[in-house]
């Protein structure tokens, strides 16, 4: 397994280089260093000299990908791409174009994101699996029929509706928790409850439908019939046998998501004033802060690759017949 993991990590390097080139190209097709300077220096009284100084100070005065003026390796290394990307591979994110330490910002912002995302993920998983099992248990009955309709309705409603509706009902009408905000330690709980509830409710529709499909496929298999023939109760059949065997597709969906919990949720964090990573990238794109954009895309790619590797490893844990080679 170790050899497999090392091989996957080595495969990741060209993927990450490719992702970097793509991000770099897309960013600079839309924004030129002059545009970035103008955005950072503001709208009023910006002189060409100030733009030039800004570019020089941040190394944006160099050629993008290939430096014709320098010979040898310098043609590739003395470029914006190399200077801004090489250090990412040792997780040195450097400073944002506005001067902030990106690594520090990520460290600070990932905890609030995790504080929302982890309970939402775990509780959401438990709730949706339970609902899906319930619907599967009552398959081909009115409970199943109306359950699926309810799921489709819940899926069709925009996440924004849950957020605004939740804030209106729970915070504005019932006055049970703060509308928005964040704090550290125990005091964070009162801020976390509502976004977690909304995150869980918002995910029930799609999750339940997805897991219901998996469970229905499993319950029609021979081993389930055998379990029933042994005289096991339906609950034992479902929770002990069906659930265990349905774990592979569930893991596929879940384990790959775990690393992304760090990245947070844009909408929830914006509306609840959670100082997480959810809006970090979007804000950076709007501010044309390439340093943050490339760092966050790089981090996202790494987390994606880590998620896939974790998924593969988890297969072997739930199904010993699977061997990684």
């Amino acid at each position, binding site marked *: 397994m170790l050899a497999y993991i090392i091989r996957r990590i080595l495969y990741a390097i060209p993927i990450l280089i490719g992702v970097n080139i793509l991000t770099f190209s897309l960013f600079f097709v*839309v*924004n*030129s260093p002059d*545009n970035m300077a*103008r*955005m950072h*220096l*503001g709208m*009023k*009284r*910006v*002189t*060409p*000299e*100030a733009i030039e*100084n*800004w570019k020089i*100070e941040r190394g944006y005065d160099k050629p993008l990908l290939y430096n014709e003026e320098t010979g040898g390796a310098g043609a590739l290394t003395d470029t914006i791409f190399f200077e801004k990307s090489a250090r990412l591979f040792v997780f040195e994110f450097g*400073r944002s174009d*506005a*001067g*902030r*330490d990106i690594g*520090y*910002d990520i460290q*600070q912002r990932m905890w*609030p994101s995790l504080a929302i995302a982890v309970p939402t993920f775990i509780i959401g998983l438990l709730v949706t699996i339970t609902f899906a099992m319930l619907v599967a*248990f*009552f398959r081909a009955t009115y409970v199943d029929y109306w359950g699926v309709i309810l799921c489709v309705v819940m899926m069709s409603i925009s996440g924004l509706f849950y957020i*605004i509706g939740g*804030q209106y009902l729970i915070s*504005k009408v*019932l*006055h*049970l*928790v*703060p*509308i*928005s*905000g*964040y704090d550290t330690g*125990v*005091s*964070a*709980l*009162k*801020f976390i*409850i509502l976004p977690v509830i909304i995150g869980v409710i918002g995910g029930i529709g799609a999750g339940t439908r997805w897991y219901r499909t998996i469970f229905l496929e499993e319950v029609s298999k021979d081993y389930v019939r055998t379990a*029933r023939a042994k*005289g096991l*109760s*339906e*609950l034992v059949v479902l929770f002990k046998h069906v659930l265990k065997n349905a774990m592979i597709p569930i893991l596929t969906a879940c384990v790959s998501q775990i690393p992304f919990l760090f990245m947070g949720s844009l909408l929830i964090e*914006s*509306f609840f*004033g959670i*100082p997480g990573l959810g*809006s970090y990238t979007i*804000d950076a794109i709007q501010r*044309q802060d390439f340093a943050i954009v490339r760092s966050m895309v790089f981090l996202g790619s790494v987390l994606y690759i880590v998620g896939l590797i974790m998924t593969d490893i988890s297969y072997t844990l739930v199904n010993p017949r699977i061997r990684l080679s």
Partner: protein
Amino acid sequence: MQNTRFELGAKWAGGYLVLLLLSGCDQGPWNNPYPPSEVQKNILYSSFAERPKHLDPARAYSSNEYAFIGQIYEPPLQYHYLKRPYTLMPLAAEAMPQPKYFNAEGLQLPDDAASDEIAYSIYDIRIKQGIRYQPHPALATDTAGNYLYHNLPPEDLENIFTLADFPETGTRELVAADYVHQIKRLAHPRVHSPIVGLMSDYIVGLKPYMVAIEAEYQKRLGESDTPAFLDLTHFPLEGAEVVDRYTYRIKLAGKYPQFVYWLSMPFFAPMPPEADRFYAQPGMEEKNLNLHWYPIGTGPYMLSVNNPNRQMILERNPNYHGEVFPGEGEAFDHEDGLLEDAGQPMPFVDKVVYSLEKESIPYWNKFLQGYYDTSGISSDSFDQAVRVGSEGDVALTDDLIAKGIRLRTSVATSTFYMGFNMRDPVIGGLSDRARKLRQAVSIAMDYEEFISIFVNGRGISAQGPIPPGIFGYRDGEQGINPYVYDWVRGQPKRKSIDEAKRLLAEAGYPGGADAKTGEPLLLHLDITATGPDDKARLDWYRKQLQKLDLQLVVRNTDYNRFQEKMLQGNAQIFIWGWNADYPDPENFLFLLYGPQGKVDHNGENAANYSNPEFDPLFDEMKNMANGPERQKIIDQMVGMARRDAPWIWGLHPKQFGLYHEWYKNAKPNLMANNTLKYLRIDPVLRAERRTQWNQPVVWPAVLVAVLLIVGTVPAVIVYRRKEHQSLKQKISPSRESMAAQS
């Protein structure tokens, strides 16, 4: 085993509930987002939607940055809080500086000397004695007077993450040299001050100083990898000199009467050289320890927490020199209770907490719950807040009146206009044809309707470039733009579309088509429209020109492309705006000054308007003192601009502010940056209102829980029945088969 798991789960759930009770069920309302210990404290609550980028006073230039540094730094002058028109008064200065004028030979000239005789002006500014800086580690010294933190080895910074991590702080008296140091900082290549270009035209020697400093900085940068510290105290600047401990002198080329307004802005606030030395140490920048994040000032407040991802907190500066609330203002200020605190020492509020609030809906709801003390009105909440009467009068809704909320409106010293690119061959130029075409379009573009539809009536249609509240603005009949409006029954009335069509025909486009070729006239609006609301606005623009049978092609583009088009002069019609730096007509009329053309000079004249009659008048007007002569020239200039119509004058926005009853001394002041010190709150009343408005309603939550529990009962019954049926089905076939066998 199962029991153990159950017990473990129960313990977790119990622990979670206890934590929940600890965090939520504390004193006061459950939905209070602030710590219970702050309930009756003298704290003002506000928010920020986007973190301020720069808090260095030499660099900051945005209103969201000034909201903080305006309270921390003290430039020599400030605006009177209550008087209108806006009036400058001393802040750190002992008195208003009086410029002295000199000719090229160095002889002093009288105050009314002609501008062209004046070679340079001298401003001697004497500051008050005894002003001290806020406590700051950059000023911490040992008993021998040596600075404690000016030679820190990198290992000493290992456990330092914020300024509060330094155990010692210090202070010292403000001296004139700190003001001179700040002026020199404007020229530092790493500071990127936005006004250095403008100031280098006036402050004597600033341009060569910039070159010299840049060369020295590059030299030091080449010698070392770490950022080179440049001690500006060793580099004299002719235009900014220390006269004595409390007096400094600024020397300006020629005459620049608007300079005093700049002296009220943070660009000219004092900066102790110790701060530059402190922050320039290796390792500081990497930890975000710099002037952009940790200001050092003498003002009423100091930034004690700077976490732009969550919260920023201003706290009372314990070393503040003190100031009293003004005792005079406008006639109605007394009736409004704005003079009740006259003579009282300021600031009134101990602490100001700014929380990150990106969305307007949560902000608005928290304001209604009493968790924010003041609010603007977003378009989402406009109908909940304000009723607009048939006469256009505005009043608060009954719900808000019942809560004791008050509304104050003020016309902003800003202008938002639709500009024509005067270099465009179709719509631009000073020919009679082009002028009439622009006038026709100006009449058709019904900004009264625009204000009503798109800004909920929060604006007044502009008659020229100068907004109300600025010298040169004229009200009433003499203030209307006669090319677009008539004065009818005591108010301006937009000219008819027939008049616009007549002008269009005279311009050579009868019926919206070129008289020579018969081709329909296409006009192009270059715009950056991204939101869903923009579509309605774009449709409205098209509809306006359809009144003249003209077609408007909208060239929607991103911000970068739009900026490039403007710089290259490729846009035809565009939307633009300007917020006043200071309350002087020069700050608006320069937007139409030829040498400020965007294409040729990279200036702020976005329309590239260049009129050989207008420009000399501007040169004359900008150096004049306010008075009838200046007004006469301004009238001439505005008249020319109205005739040439390089802009459709658009609108001056109206600002609506809502204040809770416990929020005192609120008066919109669109020029002053340091208004926080004047505000007072009644925290006891606020706590009462919060409790009254936010009683938790628990029964629906209990009902839902009960329903969920009750809902499980049929599920259990059905499950048991199903299990029973399954058993019977399993047993019955077996019996049947046994019977068959027998």
